[in-house]
């Protein structure tokens, strides 16, 4: 099927781009590197009979910790037809190199490994938007891991962003991995809903980020 050019600022491209960014960030990010979408340069859509809608995107991403540092990438997002709960297929190519975070990763890894008690924290960022420097890697890890949840749960009618970390607690492990149990809040743009989500995140400097378990939570009723 032929592909049609999409206005990059309009929502179909924007939603696919958010999904692609989440996936890409999950695959390439870590406690030292989070990537966010700066803007969509170009977008095309192909409607493939009996398969679904495929978006071709040219994106500019920025380093969450250093907005002036940007990277170009191309991505393809295939939303599958029908109501099967299959996550969209995403493929991407990054132009150039992402920053090397070995030193920061090792520092963070050793810091957590040497804690007497398992790390526990709440409300990152705080209500004013502040994240303390010690919590920044924990924040980025959630940012990266939320990319997985966003990828797995997005459709052409949704656009998710991580709103904040409600709660995080480190889980002791006997092997070399670090494990954190997060409760995050996701903001869904179309419905404007704030959705609590639990995710179990594994990380190791050489093995990247993995979400081993995740589940949508019920919103607590305050009153």
């Amino acid at each position, binding site marked *: 099927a032929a592909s049609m050019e999409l*206005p990059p600022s309009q*929502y179909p491209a924007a939603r696919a781009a958010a999904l692609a960014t989440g996936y890409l960030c999950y695959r390439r990010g870590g406690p030292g590197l989070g990537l966010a979408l700066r*803007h969509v340069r170009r977008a095309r859509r192909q409607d493939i009979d009996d398969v679904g809608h495929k978006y071709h995107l040219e994106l500019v991403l920025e380093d*969450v910790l250093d907005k002036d540092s940007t990277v170009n990438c191309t991505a393809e997002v295939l939303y599958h037809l029908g109501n099967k709960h299959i996550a969209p297929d995403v493929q991407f190519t990054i132009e150039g190199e992402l920053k090397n975070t070995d030193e920061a990763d090792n520092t963070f890894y050793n810091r957590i490994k040497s804690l007497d008690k398992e790390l526990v924290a709440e409300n990152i960022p705080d209500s*004013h*938007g502040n994240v303390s420097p010690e919590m920044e890697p924990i924040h980025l890890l959630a940012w990266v891991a939320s990319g997985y949840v966003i990828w797995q749960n997005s459709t052409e009618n949704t656009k998710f962003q991580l709103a904040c970390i409600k709660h995080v607690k480190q889980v002791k492990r006997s092997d070399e991995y670090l494990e954190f149990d997060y409760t995050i809040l996701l903001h869904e743009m179309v419905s404007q809903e704030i959705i609590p989500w639990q995710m179990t995140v594994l990380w190791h400097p050489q093995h990247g980020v993995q979400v081993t378990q995740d589940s949508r939570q019920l919103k607590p009723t*305050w009153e």
Partner: protein
Amino acid sequence: DQVLHIVPETFQQVQHLQHLCSTLPLDLWKPLLPEDIWAGKDLHIRIPAPLVQEIKDSLDQHMISYKVLIPDVQELVDWSMPRESSHRQVPEGYVYTQYHPMEEIYQWMTQIQKSNAELVTQHYLGKTMENRTMYYLKISQPSDKTKKIIWMDCGIHAREWISPAFCQWFVKEILQNYKSDPKISRFLQNLDLYVLPVLNIDGYIYSWEKDRLWRKNRSPHMNGTCYGTDLNRNFNSAWGSIGVSYNCSSEIFCGSGPESEPETRAVAQFIERKKSDILCYLTIHSYGQYILTPYGSTPKPPSNSEELMHVAQKAAAALMGKYGTRYEVGSTSLILYSNSGSSRDWAHTIGIPFSYTFELRDKGTHGFVLPPDQIQPTCEETM
């Protein structure tokens, strides 16, 4: 005492600053230690009052540029203490680069009017669901001609804290610069500005006290088991038709009918009364970095679409010129999603020609929880 903001550019400048820190009783706020002063990194330093002039002279001599971040530290300290008397000069003591709870915003409005009585008057608009008073500020240069009006409201959605922060900043900028800035003074010769710093007061307070990510107002439904109508789905423009929920538990619940909410009615009644004089309706939200034009309920463009887009594109270009921040321009129904009952659409349908929604920083990295160090650049560029 003053706090200065310096960004050293060269190693020589760094050295000079470190020298000053080690020889004089200066108080480094950021970084904490002189050895962490680097070229290219923000420096915030408190200078005791008796040394202020000497330090500034020394900086000038060494071609080190600086900005006064806090002109009077004591005033700031006094301001942040609970106090009964309200004779402080707000433009100096109020910190516009921080988020303020509603209590302080009320005090700020009173102060602003007091210290700028020749230009600013505070007016009653209505009451919220929880019976709090809604006030708007009218900025108007006395003149014998009737002027057209630009209306701007902030804080229709509780969690979008950068929005009321922008309204306050905007007022401050106008008042501080209307005598010295020819653009602003010409503006005020021909136009009156009406600013509503917080539309959804109950919701805003709730987001400070109970739930930071609350969006709606605080009207009770279903016997008090469910709260809140989305005020930006409650206006009488294609109300309840698309992009809404009829269920109170939803964030986009449109209410029991158009203008069912007292906050909506307060704004709508006022604007309706003044509509023949209102040239431009602006409503400030976050996040996303957009300048949105009508409509949300249909992709069909409004009658003056070309002119609307042209003005918006010029605004976006000017905005980008400041810090390179990219704002996308277009109608809500194409850029974001379909919605109905928005204040901006309603303003346009009753005849206000220029009607825009601004979605301020950022694009989602912080979202609603934009850190205070972004207040200044966001406001400066949007100005």
